[in-house]
């Protein structure tokens, strides 16, 4: 076991980690930040996406000890300072971009990473960027609409609807 310290959502946080402890387990069990979900645990579904030093990564496929000293943002860090929903979160609510909500933390983290890199993505770019995030409820259309809305663009009826 080793003590691992990261800056999580703007605060310095520490917890113990074994060699094998994954970032997602360190966040959920070490810090009790259970907003980040474990879906497939094989880096396919994207429910565990968080930002590490600004970039989205799958927290189920990174070791906590490797990230000692890193800056991490989780879904708990996405709300505004007054506790109201952040832009991407609000858009997911407005456009019904979720049903069961299990994939939503990863979707929001991936979508906000996309908008940082590409503030006005096309619908095709949104769909391509989210290819590592799986949703089994919505059929993706409302998620794509939410991301388009969060980028300040007009939300058109999407293809195949």
């Amino acid at each position, binding site marked *: 076991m080793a003590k691992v310290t990261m800056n999580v959502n703007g605060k310095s946080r520490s917890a113990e980690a*074994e*060699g*094998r402890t*994954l970032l997602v387990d360190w966040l959920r069990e070490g810090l009790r930040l259970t907003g980040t979900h474990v879906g497939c*645990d*094989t*880096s396919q579904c*994207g429910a565990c*996406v968080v930002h*590490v030093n600004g*970039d*989205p*990564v*799958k927290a189920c*496929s*990174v*070791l906590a*000890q*490797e990230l*000692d000293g890193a800056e991490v943002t989780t879904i708990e860090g996405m709300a505004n300072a007054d506790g109201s929903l952040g832009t991407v979160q609000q858009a997911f609510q407005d456009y019904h971009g979720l049903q069961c909500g299990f994939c939503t933390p990863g979707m929001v983290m*991936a979508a906000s*990473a*996309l908008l940082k890199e590409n503030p006005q993505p096309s619908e095709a770019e949104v769909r391509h*960027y989210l*290819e*590592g*995030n799986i949703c089994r409820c919505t059929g993706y259309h409302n998620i794509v609409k939410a991301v388009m809305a969060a980028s300040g663009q007009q939300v058109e009826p999407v293809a195949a609807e």
Partner: protein
Amino acid sequence: MYDFELVKPKTLREAVAALQAEDAQALGGGQTLLPTMKARLAMAEQFVALSGIDEIKGVCLDDDGRICIGGGTTHATVARECAESYPALASLAGRIGDPAVRNRGTIGGSIANNDPSACYPAGALGSNATIMAEGPNGTREIAADDFFLGMFTTALEEGEIVSEVKFPVPERARYEKFIQPASRFPLVAAFVAKFSDGVRVAITGASSSGVFRWTEAEEALSADWSPDAVKGLTAPDAGEMISDLHGDGAYRAHLVKVMTARAVAAA
């Protein structure tokens, strides 16, 4: 996943030394190795994380005009930094996995693993790249032609690390892959590269012996750089292709032709 001790060297020399320990294994970006360890298909007492070694990260140009990519460079970095200098390679890197995977997975890890369906082995073999391997006895240069020895097998010795991969830049090149929809790995993919002295064609995903050069297509394309030159060829022997529930050998052999022609058309 069984527990292990994680070592985090800061320099290549420290990493090579750490790998001398009994039952020690290198850990690159972990996007393949960690899922494999979770499935208990891989295990060591000690893993040596390469992610903290700055000297094997980044892209530069050497005196011969080759693009030199540090073994610890992520796919996302290659996609970004080679977009102008080697667009075909940047495009290959930018289509591996998904954005989150590309922020962790590295070129050195992909090449050292030599998954028969991985993208980078085709890019390295098709580009006639040189792989730099760092080990206890110093640095070795290994031509891509001598590096990929079969499914999950390379010329790397025990304890060696891919420190850098050097890519000559072709006049024209392109990577085209036919994606297996569930895994997103290529079912079959072709990397074509036209150099002043000839054409190279590397195929991944298809053969049960891993990435290979399709020499018949190289000869045909060296004489006539066009998709039609490929269409007239006989497909590789279906018996040597991977045959599984996603596609049998004959289907993969056919795809080899299709993807090579598409790559030439798009180059």
